[in-house]
């Protein structure tokens, strides 16, 4: 017996209509029995339409001011510390959620000239994920492991990451780090990358071969807490809703001169830097 294309399509059509073909069958088979249960957000969760940061560089003076925030973030999130590795390897394999760099490398396309405040050129700037409104990393991720949440946070799902590193190539801000080594491993001197004595037992580590980055502390926002860096920064890092004209971050952006990193790329970064702010600044 053989059927032609026309007969086959008729058969498929009729069987779908009477419900013995198509998705009806598969949906019936996939019943996992969890219909009665429900999920909901934690009532303490801080909400916004688009979370953003304001970094006031004038409030960050000593190296300690920076290190305090970096340590707060990295210890809470069990970020592996590769400082025990030889310098050359460490540079390439370093895992960082928040770090610092100089003016030139932070704002490579910002206008500058030889008479500019020399302090500015020597100053360090905080760098972390910009949680862009149009994130390039999200567009290129083949597994949707990185995605944009409704509140504007660019989130990373470590369960789905296949370690292809497209996102690292796409991100213009270098905010993403690849786990070249098992974060549970040790360096040549036997020093663990994540110290089991100091690790945060409430937060996972990552595994070798996944990409990680700042998640704007989604786990803390769910408990009604500010991101760890903002909390440790003594007001130098402010966190708030960019879509709310009455939020503190919007008030600062409206009244002070702020710049963003590489705005010409069109990713709409959500970190605003208040520049200057010495005695003479307004």
């Amino acid at each position, binding site marked *: 017996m053989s059927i032609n294309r026309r007969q086959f399509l008729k058969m498929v059509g009729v069987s779908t209509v009477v419900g013995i073909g198509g998705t009806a069958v598969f949906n019936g088979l996939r019943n996992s*029995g969890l219909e009665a249960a429900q999920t909901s957000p934690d009532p303490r969760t801080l909400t916004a339409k688009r979370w953003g940061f304001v970094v006031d560089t004038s409030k960050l003076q000593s190296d300690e001011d920076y290190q305090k925030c970096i340590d707060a973030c990295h210890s809470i999130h069990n970020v592996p510390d590769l400082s025990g590795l030889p310098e050359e390897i460490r540079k390439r394999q370093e895992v960082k959620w928040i770090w610092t760099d100089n003016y030139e490398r932070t704002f490579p396309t910002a206008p500058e000239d030889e008479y500019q405040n020399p302090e500015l050129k020597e100053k360090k700037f905080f760098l972390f994920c910009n949680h862009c409104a149009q994130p390039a990393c999200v567009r290129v991720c083949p597994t949707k492991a990185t995605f944009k949440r409704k509140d504007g946070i660019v989130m990373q799902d470590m369960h789905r990451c296949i370690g292809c590193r497209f996102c690292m190539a796409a991100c213009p801000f270098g905010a993403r780090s690849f786990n070249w080594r098992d974060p549970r491993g040790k360096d040549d001197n036997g020093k663990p990358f994540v110290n089991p004595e100091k690790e945060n037992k409430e*937060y996972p580590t990552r595994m070798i071969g996944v990409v990680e980055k700042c998640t704007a502390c989604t786990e803390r926002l769910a408990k009604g807490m500010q991101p760890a860096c903002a909390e440790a920064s003594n007001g130098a890092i402010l966190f708030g809703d960019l879509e709310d004209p009455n939020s503190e971050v919007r008030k600062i952006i409206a009244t002070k001169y702020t710049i963003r990193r590489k705005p010409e790329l069109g990713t709409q970064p959500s970190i605003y830097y208040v520049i200057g702010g010495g005695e003479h600044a307004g």
Partner: protein
Amino acid sequence: MYDSGKIIAGLIVFVLLVTFPFISNMGKASAKPKPSIDTPVINEMAVKKCVEPKEFMRAEHMQLLNNWRDSVVRNGDRIYVNTAGQSYNMSLQNTCMNCHSNKKKFCDECHNYMAVNPYCWSCHIQPKEQPNEQPKENML
């Protein structure tokens, strides 16, 4: 039939080889897994209840954990309201393992028996267990 002796002898050897694992293990069923719920937190509970009934958890905990993961990571919903109407924080590391702090006697007991190797623990931190035995690394 030519060479019948060799063929039959060969067949016998073949059948013996193939059935060897079955023959050698006959009547030696390994002990059924007995996951233990003997942990300080569970012992203190007046009514020993998991987030869902025992039978459901036994059969469906993997789907439940998958749904929890998707809900928390992808939707940001962290509260689970169970069929009895009670709320729980959806967290393997902080909710499940808070009670079931005996991973070796609880998780591994069945997982080893069934020869499944879930890779939860390559990222999630397992509870420190009381006996000084080092848990075996079962990373990928």
